[in-house]
């Protein structure tokens, strides 16, 4: 404390967003700062609210799949998978094994693509320009494969309740084998360049710490929760599709800081690539669509099903009244819950770290606002 004359100090309000390059979309937070320290943070969301859940109530089950493509527009296939699994549960059909393998291969590839986007943009947030070039190069390879298989780069509309739209092309298996080799090299390159960089470590190590109990109470999931040392992964804890047949590890962090959350995603890329290789070696022949009625009218009832999205636990609560349209569709958006953890993480940190903390949560505003 200075020994000179005493002045009263007031906290200053600092607005960040909705138009801000580091908020990854239209997200606004109001920081209350005392000097350089953040005293309080108030997130404001809803700029991208499109009423997806309400809209799903007037669409038939097949049409809702296209809405799920647009919920989390970075990992479209994982979102489709979440909905078609809920639909299969309520219609009491099972997808054939080949379709399940194809869906898992594509979902894991999309996980890698999503994590690559995260790594690249997170590096930009922290002032490193090069990794994003490497990451987008690799992501582009994956998008090219998606275009080859589904016909679209992002809004695929490929999965169906009971299977997939069409079988994969003949050159799918060699293409994916080649792709995995390329992408793995690219991830290693980026990993070597960024993960142990002195400046990067300085910006992320010990920043934005959240402890396990608090993270669970906030409803965090995915790498954001596992960074705090809680090994919760839906693929392991509530296995679905063909995940029980695959051999993989779920990396778990220790400190709950930004670097842990970042590095878990890098490790998940390696795990996902090895899972895809296993899937390709096991890929069986057979039908890709469950036999049965084409236009389905499920029995009245309700189901809750969830799956592991790149951002965490993506749940779908589906209520049917027996008609051809869902009565209520409720999405459990992992980004939405992860964002609840922003406040406990940010309070007490520096203003500049607020950007690093928000980036480490890897939010997609389309999913937060729905």
């Amino acid at each position, binding site marked *: 404390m200075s020994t000179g004359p005493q002045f009263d100090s007031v906290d200053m309000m600092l607005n960040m967003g909705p138009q801000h390059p580091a908020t990854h979309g239209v997200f606004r937070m109001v920081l209350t700062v005392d000097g350089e320290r953040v005293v309080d943070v108030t997130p404001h*969301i*809803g700029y991208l*609210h499109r*009423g997806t*859940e*309400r*809209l799903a*109530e*007037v669409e038939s089950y097949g049409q809702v799949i296209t809405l799920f493509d647009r919920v989390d527009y970075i990992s479209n296939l994982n979102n489709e998978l979440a909905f078609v699994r809920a639909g299969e*549960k*309520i219609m*009491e059909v099972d997808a054939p094994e080949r379709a399940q393998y194809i869906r898992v291969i594509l979902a894991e590839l999309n996980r890698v693509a999503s994590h690559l986007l995260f790594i690249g943009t997170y590096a930009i947030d922290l002032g490193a320009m090069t990794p994003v070039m490497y990451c987008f190069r690799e992501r582009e390879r994956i998008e090219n494969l998606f275009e080859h298989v589904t016909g679209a780069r992002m809004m695929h509309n490929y999965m169906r309740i009971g299977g997939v739209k069409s079988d994969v092309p003949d050159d799918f298996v060699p293409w994916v084998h080649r792709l995995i080799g390329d992408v793995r090299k690219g991830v290693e390159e980026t990993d070597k360049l960024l993960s142990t960089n002195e400046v990067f470590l300085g910006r992320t190590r010990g920043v934005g710490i959240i402890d396990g*109990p*608090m993270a*669970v*109470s*906030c*409803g965090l999931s995915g790498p954001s929760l596992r960074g705090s040392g*809680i090994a*919760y992964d839906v693929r392991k*804890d*509530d296995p679905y599709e063909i995940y029980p047949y695959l051999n993989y590890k779920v990396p778990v962090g220790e400190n709950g800081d930004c670097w842990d959350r970042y590095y878990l995603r890098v490790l998940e890329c390696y795990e996902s690539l090895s899972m895809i290789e296993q899937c390709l070696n096991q890929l069986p022949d057979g039908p890709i669509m469950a036999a049965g009625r084409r236009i389905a*009218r*499920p*029995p*009245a*009832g*309700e*189901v*809750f099903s*969830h799956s592991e999205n790149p951002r965490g*636990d993506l*749940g779908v*609560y589906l*209520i*049917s*009244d*027996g*008609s*051809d*349209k869902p*009565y*209520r569709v*409720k999405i*459990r958006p992992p980004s*939405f*819950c992860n*964002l*609840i953890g922003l406040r*406990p993480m940010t309070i007490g940190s520096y203003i500049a770290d607020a950007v690093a903390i928000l980036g480490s949560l890897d939010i997609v505003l389309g999913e937060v*606002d*729905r």
Partner: protein
Amino acid sequence: MTEQDPLAGQPEAKGPEASAEKPVRHGPPIVVAEEQLNERGEQTAEQLARTLGALALDAAGRDDTPWARVDASQLHRAAEKCRDGEMGMDMLNLMLAVDWVDRIQMIYVLYSTTNNRKAILKADLPAEAPKISSVTDLWEAGSWYEREAHDLFGVEFPGNSDMSPLLLYEGFEGHPGLKSYPLNDYEEW
């Protein structure tokens, strides 16, 4: 369109007497799914019944997730028992409101990271002025879910200090999640 779905599209008046005048549904008869718990679900259901005791009005479940319906005034107590009792439900995985036209139903999906078990609590609220005590003091995640349900369904949560609009903008009129809220469907012109 050959078939009109009475539940979709057009705005409906609230209240049981209005729903009695609903047009008759055409098409095949409605089949109701049989709810059945598997072995793991039965175990969780036993735990849930032990935890809630007389608080549970009725209970059933599907696959590995049992549910129990409690009175709206007892929901907070039931949720607290689930969190602190043997079930150890430390995560509020999902919370949603459902508009059944004659009532609003709140559904709480609870998850335990230590026991890896899921359970669902349900509570029925009147369609007019729905109100239920907040669970924000039990789980941080409750705060945003409650603000969302307040925005979209008009449910009041005494105990949650911040009820400012979350998904909607300041001054938005109405509750777009309700079935009575007009949703412009496609029409021929």
